[in-house]
């Protein structure tokens, strides 16, 4: 097990190296010049060239890449072109915000998703099932910038129950977590439903029922646990999406996290910040995948890692 974990962690190194290279090249292929953007639209040529020299952008690309890699090995991601703050610092004070939002979103998504999926599966093709699945479809189809605004409109502007924007307190977390979690909840609900339906048709469920077990025990202990493998996969994938794809939620709810940092940095061609943020997201994807793989073994004792 430990050997497996170490092996997987070692494998992340080439992945991250590849990501670093691709991002490094991509941000530079896109037209636009950080020095020009920093100097402003109305800047003189001398100023733009001076800034380019200061930032080392006048050096050959290979030299810049080598520089970036050596910095990376030391844990130094460089300084933001724009704010002049170290990139690690820029990332560090946004990570907790993004983690909080993603965790709360995940909580909403799994709680609502799994519950809705189970309810639907237990009474397939009933009215409840139809309602749950229509809501799930709606959740999946609604873009977050719309559902987010609707939540703000109803709960902040009309009812005045919750704060509209910001990331100061627990109350601030409710609306963005709901908006963010809802679309993932829809996916999880649909996945849970189909996995449960399949499991509920299997022989050992018939056996469990034949033994005279209470339906609650059959569903929760015997069926749900066996239906969890595909659900965990989806939850894992959704976690990655929540970590990186919270861009829209972060924008709508003025939540200062990694997603928005990435968008702003891209628009400003803040190369070091884009590189740092993408590496961070890539790393979190890899780690989430590892955790998902390990969870399989936990849920299904037949799965073993060597």
């Amino acid at each position, binding site marked *: 097990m430990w050997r497996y974990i170490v092996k997987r962690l070692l494998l992340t190194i080439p992945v991250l190296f590849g990501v670093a290279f691709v991002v490094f090249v991509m941000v530079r292929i896109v037209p636009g010049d950080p020095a020009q953007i920093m100097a402003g639209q109305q*800047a*003189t040529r001398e*100023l733009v060239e001076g800034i380019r020299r200061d930032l080392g952008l006048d050096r050959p690309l290979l030299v810049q890449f080598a520089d970036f890699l050596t910095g990376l090995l030391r844990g130094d991601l460089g300084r933001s072109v*724009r704010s002049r703050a170290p990139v690690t610092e820029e990332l560090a004070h946004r990570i907790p915000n993004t983690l909080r939002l993603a965790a709360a979103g995940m909580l909403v998504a799994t709680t609502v998703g799994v519950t809705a999926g189970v309810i639907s599966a237990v009474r397939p093709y009933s009215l409840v099932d139809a309602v749950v699945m229509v809501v799930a479809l709606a959740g999946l189809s609604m873009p977050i*910038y719309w559902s987010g605004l609707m939540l703000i409109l109803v709960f902040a502007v009309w009812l005045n129950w919750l704060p*509209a924007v910001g990331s100061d307190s627990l109350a601030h977390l409710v609306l963005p977590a709901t908006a963010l979690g809802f679309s993932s909840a829809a996916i999880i609900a649909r996945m849970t439903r189909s996995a449960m339906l399949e499991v509920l048709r299997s022989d050992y469920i018939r056996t469990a029922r034949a033994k005279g077990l209470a339906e609650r025990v059959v569903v929760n202990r015997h069926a749900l646990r066996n239906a969890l493998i595909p659900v965990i996969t989806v939850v894992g994938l959704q976690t990655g999406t929540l970590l990186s794809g919270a861009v829209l939620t972060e924008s709508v709810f003025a939540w*200062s996290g990694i997603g*928005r940092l990435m968008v702003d940095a891209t628009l400003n061609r803040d190369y070091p910040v884009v590189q740092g943020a993408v590496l961070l997201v890539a790393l979190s994807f890899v780690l989430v995948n590892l955790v998902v793989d390990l969870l399989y073994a936990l849920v299904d004792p037949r799965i073993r890692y060597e």
Partner: protein
Amino acid sequence: MRVLAVCLLAFAMLAAGAGAGAAPAPARGGTLIIAEGSDATTLDGHRYTDSPTAERMEHICETLFWLSPEGRVEPRLATAFTFSPDGRRLTIRLRPNVRFHDGTPFNAQAAKWNLDRVLDPATRASFRSLIDRVTQVVALDANTLVLLTNAPFAPLVLNLTHGGVCMQSPTAIERLGPDEYARNPVGTGPYRFREWVRGDRITVTRFEEYWGEKGHFDAIQWRVIPDDGARVAAVESGAVHIAKRVPPRDVERLRANRALRVEVQTSLRTIFIGFNVTRPPFNNRRVRQALNYAINKEAIVRAILGGTARVSDAPIAPGVAGYAKIMTYEYNVERARQLLAEAGYPNGFRATLHHPVARYIRDAEIAAAVQGLLRRVGVEVELVPMDIGSLVAFTNKPQAEATHQMYMLGWGTVTGDADYGLYNLFHSSQWPPAGFNRGFYRNPQVDALLDRGRTTLDQAERNRIYREAMEIIMEDAPWIFLHSESQVTAYRAEVQNVYMHPAERLVAMQGFFRR
């Protein structure tokens, strides 16, 4: 030394605020929360370029002179100025007994240190060009500063109103170094910097030892809310007191809300579509004029901008010193067709229009409208949307390499002087990559006039010079002259004496809450 002009400045502004008598008495206390779409970029007053940063910095750091919303130069850290008879020596009297937030005295030495810092190319000061004709700065005594230039430079005093040459504590910059200082600014303003949570908020608190009328708010906080709808919802729900850049579509609805006050302030930013005048078909003046006639500017302002903009009648906006109403190409499809035929394009032609997305108010929608209107005169325009960073880089190539045909951009005449709004855009010395004349316009007459405008000190004479230059420019039509933007701002009703400056900055220095 015989003094040509002694310009003692009125101190009326200190007591005035806005329309003194009728306004309620200022109450102290509270934190004003302002919502804006973007965060500051750097808090080094000499290195920012964007108006969101300018607004925050203006409450922290002050300039020698201040440009009033009406376009008057008023005293701030300077109290008076005189030009020598030959116009090459500007003597500035500084306000005595002023201290920076860190206790460092503000005097001629500190002012000289700041101007020298801006002038030093190694600083990479964004607005060095505003004062780059100054050859030497001399601290004559504790409160007298002298600026020397090789030739008279008329816009100098106006340029000193720009936040890009504000006064910052030399001690703080030297102690922290430029990178660290850029996150911990120290000025002389009525509010002092407290914290910057990047991407989220900037907070300033009242400076109790301020030399002038002290701030009434305990603190002012700028919150970043990028989404238009969320920003508007935030001010409706009372989560913030002010929402900036309200989308035109929300104006009517918000006006019906009695808890809010919506104000539309014209700005000094003009939006235009430039032509690369060195390549066919746009090297033909008739073609450029035809396209001006083909665009229904009033309809664009009315339908797309909800009436919150002003159709351009000159290359610069009213409120800029030197502005004069010149003319507007009225919407006339027949005239446009006729001019195109005369120019040898009876069946029109195809062209590309590069335009920004989400940089100017509804820029992409305006580009689409232009495309539709030009189709009516037979000109098929392909739209190429770009983010502003890419667009600026794309149009910044030297003439021989430039491939752009039509490009939509805007220009904020932030110093409030025609020189800044015309020289950079129409003088032939400003072709890319040196300057902002991105359509490669060249007219020797205009060049000569713009040169004269710079060195003439008499404002009435300058007005005449700029009027003549603008008449030629309008006739030459190197742009489709569209409109100047307005800033739509929503305020909670209790917010008093906070207003939008035409230079796109919110001024909250003397604001307060009505109790």
